[in-house]
């Protein structure tokens, strides 16, 4: 079913806040998880809200994307809490969370997943700079970002993850807030995506809406544009990394801070193998390496680290771009990951983050697969 969210005081944001408030006040929901502007700050951080009054600070749509909230939702749900939480997530956050569900790091059981058409994002540093300069107010941003698919905002590039995203629309949720192709003068639309979502929407007693005519067309356009951008990016990054030497050069600034890993929503290990004694080499080892080539750069194992991460999770990469965001050396980690991930995912015919019942490729054994690669018939 579909319902309509009217503007409140001529404000889309306030309309949305009103909707979430009703949701939180309803008996169905105990808590709400969504981006909230912190007091006396321009920082917008994901927050767990239980007091309806606090909803006034919620900013559901903004260019701020400090971290992939899929990770946070996993913390809220990996065990039972006895409470029902509605969570508002960007499409790439939903995908990340679905991947984590597969890995038993989260559960949908006590959650209502609310998806939203992606409002794009700036990188962490760009967001800070943008906010310093002359930021748009919340409503103006919504109007702008959903009126045209632009690559920049006030001279700042949107994150390349957003510009190359082929799936900026939520799927497999309990309900979705639709913005693309919607005539805002008539409010916004919420569409139910599951039985549970439908029941909640019905209990809210709001007026029904219908699917905006132009939505499909606009979605297709956006996908096409982003897809082209993606192709160009892949081509570019492939050219930059298509030999081990080039790859070494690409990652030569890497300092093994592991920030990218820490911010990666699908890198779910409690303790990474790179933190174990596997990479705590014997002193003689460094010498042997040095003796062989006459020089060895430290820290060692930097490219190996990235390759290992690619091997471990490239099939699950949801393309959120937080790895690049986190890199203090400004390495474009995301672009490499996304490029490799596309190949990996295509090879296994795997779509991460879509269906929690689709098993991760490595947990499935087929006697006959990749015969041309493994050379065994």
């Amino acid at each position, binding site marked *: 079913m579909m319902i309509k969210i009217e503007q409140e005081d001529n404000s889309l944001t306030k309309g949305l806040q009103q909707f979430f408030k009703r949701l939180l006040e309803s008996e169905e929901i105990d808590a709400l998880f969504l981006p909230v502007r912190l007091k006396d700050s321009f920082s917008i951080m994901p927050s767990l809200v239980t007091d309806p009054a606090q909803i006034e600070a919620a900013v559901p749509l903004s260019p701020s994307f400090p971290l992939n909230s899929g990770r946070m939702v996993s913390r809220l749900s990996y065990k039972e809490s006895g409470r029902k939480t509605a969570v508002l997530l960007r499409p790439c956050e939903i995908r990340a969370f679905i991947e984590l569900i597969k*890995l*038993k790091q989260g559960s949908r059981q006590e959650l209502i997943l609310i998806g939203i058409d992606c409002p794009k994002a700036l990188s962490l540093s760009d967001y800070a700079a943008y906010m310093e300069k002359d930021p748009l107010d919340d409503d103006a941003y919504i109007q702008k970002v959903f009126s045209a698919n632009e690559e920049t905002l006030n001279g700042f590039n949107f994150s390349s993850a957003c510009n190359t995203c082929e799936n900026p629309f939520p799927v497999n949720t309990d309900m979705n807030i639709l913005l693309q192709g919607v005539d805002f003068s008539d409010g916004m639309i919420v569409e139910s995506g599951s039985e549970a979502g439908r029941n909640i929407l019905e209990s809210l007693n709001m007026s029904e809406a219908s699917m905006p005519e132009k939505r499909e067309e606009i979605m297709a356009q956006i996908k096409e544009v982003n897809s082209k951008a993606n192709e160009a990016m892949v081509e570019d990054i492939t050219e930059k990394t298509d030999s081990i030497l080039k790859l070494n050069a690409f990652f030569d600034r890497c300092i093994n801070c592991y920030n990218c890993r820490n911010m990666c929503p699908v890198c779910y*290990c*409690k303790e*990474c193998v790179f933190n*174990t004694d*596997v990479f705590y080499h014997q002193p003689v*080892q460094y010498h042997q390496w040095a003796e062989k080539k006459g020089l060895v750069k430290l820290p060692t194992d930097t490219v190996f680290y990235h390759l290992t991460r690619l091997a471990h999770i490239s099939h699950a990469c949801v393309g959120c771009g937080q790895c690049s965001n986190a890199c203090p050396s400004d390495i474009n980690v995301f672009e490499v990951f996304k490029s490799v991930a596309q190949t990996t995912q295509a090879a296994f015919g795997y779509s991460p983050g879509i269906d929690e019942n689709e098993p*991760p490729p490595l*947990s499935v054994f087929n006697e006959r697969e990749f015969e041309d690669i493994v050379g065994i018939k």
Partner: protein
Amino acid sequence: MAIGKTLVAGAGLSGIRSALDLAETGYKVLLIDQSDHIGGLLCQLDNQFPTSKCGYCRMLPMFDRDRSSQHCLRKGLFHENIEILLSTQLMSVEGEPGDLKVTLKQNPSLIDPSLCTGCGECERVCSVFVDDPFNEGLTKRKAVYLPSPQSFSNAYTIDYTACTRCGECEKICPTGAIKFIDQDREKFKILVVDDEKIVRDSMKEWLKEEGFSVATADSGQKALELMDDRLFNMMLTDIKMPGMDGVELLAKAKEKNEDLCVIMMTAYAAVDSAVDAMKQGALDYLTKPFDPDVLISMALKVYHEFEIAEARVEQVDALILAGGTQFYKPELGKNPYGYGVLPGVVTGMEFERLISGTGLGKGKLIHPKTGKPVRKIAWFQCVGSRDVQADAGFCSSVCCMISIKEAILAKEKYGQDLETTLFYMDMRTIGKSFDEYRLKAQEENQVRFVRARIHSLDEDLKKKDGSLLARYVDLQGNIHEDDFDLVVLATGQRPAKQMTELAVKNDIGINPWGFIETTPFSIIKTSRAGILSGGSLSGLKDISDSVTCASAAALGACKIMHEAGKQPIDAHAIDMDDLTILARENPRILTVLCSCDKDLSQTLDLEKLKLDLDRIPENQSVEIMDKFCTDEGWKTLADMIQKTNPNRLILGACLPCIQKQRVKELSKESGLHSSLVETLDIISILKQYPDSQIPKTTQRIERELKALISKARFKNPVPGERLESNQNALVIGGGIAGITAALSIADCGYHVDLVEKDDAIGGNLLWMDKTVDNLDIQAYLDEKVKELESHNQVTIHKKTKTESTAQNPGEFLTFLKKDGEPDETILHGVTLLATGGSQAPLMKDNEDPQQKELTQKEFEMGVQDHKIDPEKLETVVMIQCSGTRDEKRNYCSRVCCIRALKNALFLKDKNSDIQVYILYRDMMSYGFYEEYYTEAKNRGVIFFQYDSANKPLTQIQEDKVLVKTRDLLLDMPVEIEADCVIHATGILPDLPAELADQYGADLDTFHFFKEADSKFRPVDSMNYRVFSCGLSLKPCTIEEAVASAEAAAIRAVRILSHERLVSGKMVADTRTATCSMCEMCVDTCPYGARFVDSLEEKIVIDPAACQGCGVCAAVCPSGSAVLEGLDRRLMLDVIDMALL
């Protein structure tokens, strides 16, 4: 208490299965084979259907596997509980079960294996070439040879009969391993009897030249007179002689001297009488005219047995005969396909060798005459089967599937444009997945199936390109002539000659065809107590049935041993090494290279090697030694270890030397922990480099050694883990399979809970009266149920269902839901799913108030309840494959054709005037059931074949059923007014998916139990504690159900006999501290060895189930799933070293 011991005679597929089952249970096994290698026929076969792969190794032990070898069974087998004797024959058996005296005759090799280094010098100088039986005579080998190309053993063998004793090998052997025994052939007396002087004289001359004493006689009478004077060792006699013929002479001569070896001589056509003579005790025969070489080799063979074979007498508790079968030899019959005469005519086995990677063409398929690639191949079925002219009134059961496999294989190997045609009479796809496989061949691989029998084969003389012309007639009567490059004869099976002889000599019953006869409802019990028949000896079986039967035989032996009060060896009573101390010590590595009788400094820069390796702190020293494989070399190494006291050893030697068993022995003797000995086949590596490339070779060897040193220094000794294992069994299902399984386990001394959902025990047998061979089923069932009910080790739960289950390492916990009683919880170590199956219901389109259309079951029950009176019936039609073998249920239920034959014969017995028509697609009267097909025909039952596209139609008329079908031969419609129509609707399995799932078992496409491997582990599931038998496993007859139950029972007993199970050394574990509990490893583990312990929130492992495959370690990103002893640091270090 004494430890039980069983002799298994025959070390092919089934012998190995029986031996391993018993050995794993903990009994001692003496495994013998008359050939020079183990593995039997399968050594020559690379691929089996349906995977087109081999899976022989899947029979290897899964827990406590370090007691056994863990490599390809074609390469050899070791198990601590199995003693293997090759070139050994069982001569006789005396005594009672539990106390059998067996006499063995072993042909000692002329080569001392403890001295032979496998250098191959003897082979090089040998000038005798003989047909290599391993390649079915398609290639030649020398008289001194390595027994099989895959074998690990490096000891050469001498073919005694082919060897000319030239002595060259003895001279050249560097270790003095070859010693010819002093010969005294003059003492060996041969009598030649023939009415023709030329024959007598020339034979005398030939044999004398070989040094034998020869006397001649021109008639049987004269021969007997001579025998009064002297004792002869061997007699060669003509069959056709005036007066007393050879066969009569044979009988009379044997009366005089029972041990006399008699060889018959006969002209081409009288081979039949020669074969008859062999049944009467002749050893062999020669076809006249014959090559002197053939005569000499035969004489030498007999002489060899006479002179040097030693008898060895052993005491065992039980005997399993597993001598297998032999293939029919087309050249000995009428040979209409010109086998051996026409180029391009080969047997199935030869074809397998032709296309084998280790075979003749090294994988290429070339026409033997023209040398051109083969493009058109035909398979002829029933060569020496279903052919009374070839003394085979039976079907060989397996050839249809073998041929389909070969056709698919040929297509897969040589391209889909290869033309393959299969000529057959009935396509006997008698297993649950066989029909599917046939369809795959037909549709995916475009194999052409032609229902026709080829009468004979000629070379196409017009084309003169070696192509073969086959003439056949299609169903419509049109004559076709097709030409082929290659024709493969699907040769049938024959009993193994030695086994038949052994049986006859030892009062073991055989059937008219010479196969071992088994007792009613059993395919393992012979007529003599204590002697069991495994594998295909009692009739023709494919791999899975052979394996099942072999396991069943092992169960039989196990029961005998238990009843005789013998015990299995306690598996966990092995010494625990003090590993903790070892783990704390710093690594001290000794590196030893065996030079294998060569000067290593010619190929390696030893100085540099030593210098480089010495820079690794943990490496103590590098030593060079010679001939590790000889006793002397062995001692040198032991001394070295004594002197340097290393705690880790790296051994570079040849492949056979570094095979596990030898290293294991070394560890035992030297006190070095076996998991800390690393080996490298340096000889193979050195062979890859020319002598001139010393730096390159040195670098390669150095890298390899460094990698091993890395491995050794990071490796910690790992003990095999011990798992407490529950020793009770749960059997679900109270049909004959469940009953048999429960009784079998209980008879071996373990407690069984048997759960049956109904209130009566017996399952399908409850409605059955007689078998096709007229055995009383009810009497059998009564006996079994009584036995079960009175057994103190069995608890029967009737009207009970299993509700849910949980599995922990070592045990299951199952809740039993009982009708009208409180629920019960039982703990058990193994689960047997024997939930059975039922006859599929009849899909009726017709209104049939009078029940004129019946299923087979309804008919049989109707007769038993006197609702159907055979005497009142005039015409009965039986429709086979009714609603089965089509899109919906595309499998053959195996038993319906036999049941139809039984019912037809029953009706004919009751009322000889009754007309019975059987409408069939392929008559599945496999094996000896073929005789009932013939009998039914003899009794006037009329058979109509129909194809799946034109199924027979029925129409209910007043008190008749009108059956409409088509006579395909006469090409005309047929209408039969029948009093009743009996439909063969096939079998449906009754194994609920939830139930199977609870125990970690899977179902196949048709909802039968899915075997871990349909060929090599036919009753196991991937969960090593769960088994299935009877109809829930696959469609089967009663005997087959019983056999599968016995097989499942021994597979279970194998686990139950151990209080604690010992794992392999290489097992997985979880580092709980770093584990994120994503459970990927649990889902991924193919053996079900990983469980989530939800109370403790961690992943636990059943170390006995774990096979150390490492999939869990691969799937775990954090490195929390690990293989003990093979952690990442070690692996990275090894790689690093290898790259340095």
